[in-house]
């Protein structure tokens, strides 16, 4: 038995082949493992990197993690083009094919249920950033003539700042309401840290929307139209993603567990 089995996703049998040159985690092309009419998409990965100890160590290495995350996402992306995959969390590894089959058998009902729920749907990510601080109205340039002038300037600056944040909040919740009404489900994620994303501006809305494929074009246009609504705010759209944010739980409405 050479190597371990890294599982990316579970899906229905593919209607079209995956792109031929696709490579996955550890450079291994993803393979399709069929069990009871469902498919697990797996790569053969070496024990030296994916056994418990090395995997644990690798996860702390951001270079390795980045590469692996991109490879994982690359396979999920390719699957999303041809089917509706249930993406598994990064680092789901089994000893051999039969380990994967046992897992599929145990979770078969869940998988079918979730696949039915997500069939033909994709996830769109929408983020709102506060792009810039308000112009400082020449604060440093024009020297305050007196203490009172200084305070007045300062107050103007602080007020402009607060206004922008309030505007951002209102804009974000309005946008979220509109987009939610055009989506089947939605999730609010924690705002991203600018340092990790490497993107300028303060992230005030980080949301995911579950949208059917045939309504996606409309959804994208809807987001596009809001883009320039408020100066100083930036709307960013990502996707289509596999329905990562909606694969885990049953439903967003009536979270009563």
């Amino acid at each position, binding site marked *: 038995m050479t190597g371990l089995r890294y599982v990316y996703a579970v899906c229905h049998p593919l209607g079209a082949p995956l792109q031929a040159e696709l490579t996955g985690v550890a450079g291994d092309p993803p393979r399709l493992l069929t069990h009871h009419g469902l498919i697990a998409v797996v790569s053969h990965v070496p024990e030296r990197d994916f056994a418990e100890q090395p995997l644990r160590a690798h996860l702390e290495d951001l270079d390795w993690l980045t590469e692996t995350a991109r490879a994982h996402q690359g396979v999920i992306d390719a699957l999303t083009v041809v089917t509706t995959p249930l993406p598994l*969390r990064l680092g789901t590894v089994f000893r051999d094919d039969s380990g994967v089959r046992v897992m599929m058998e145990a979770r078969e009902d869940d998988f079918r249920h979730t696949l039915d729920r997500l069939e033909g749907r994709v996830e769109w990510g929408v983020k709102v950033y506060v792009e810039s601080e308000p112009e400082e109205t020449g604060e440093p340039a024009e020297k305050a003539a007196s203490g009172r002038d200084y305070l007045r300037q300062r107050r103007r600056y602080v007020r402009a700042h607060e206004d922008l944040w309030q505007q951002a909040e209102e804009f974000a919740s309005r946008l979220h309401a509109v987009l939610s009404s055009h989506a089947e489900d939605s999730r609010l994620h924690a705002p991203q840290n600018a340092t990790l994303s490497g993107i300028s501006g303060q992230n005030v809305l980080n949301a995911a929307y579950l949208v059917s494929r045939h309504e996606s074009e409309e959804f994208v246009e809807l987001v596009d139209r809001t883009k320039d609504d408020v100066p100083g705010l930036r709307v960013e759209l990502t996707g289509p993603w596999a329905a990562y944010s909606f694969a885990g739980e049953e439903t967003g409405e009536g979270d009563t567990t």
Partner: protein
Amino acid sequence: MTTMASRLPEPYAQGSSANLADILERVLDKGIVIAGDIRINLLDIELLTVKLRLIVASVDKAKEMGIDWWEDDPALSSGARRKELARENSELRERLAQLESGSAQREPQRSQRSQKSPKSQKES
């Protein structure tokens, strides 16, 4: 254009240009959780994301100072770790050179102290 079958609009900020935070957010935090044969506790991944956030938070300062945390943080980048070692090495060499030249001038003091030091036994 996009693949016909899916009738999807052009991807937005996907593929290689997708921001790393977007990808990590999904592949680590979302998706279906299954305990594989190789047990990396979920806690580990949660801890990892927390850790990433902490690292990220703590380098805000560094970023302000114009340091590219991503490339240069030795805790995060193996390339940076090598660079860090090289830098530390040359720093140490520099300090050693300074110490050597300094100690040459302060020879008397040094020999006084070295009488008490056990190392001096080796030297003598």
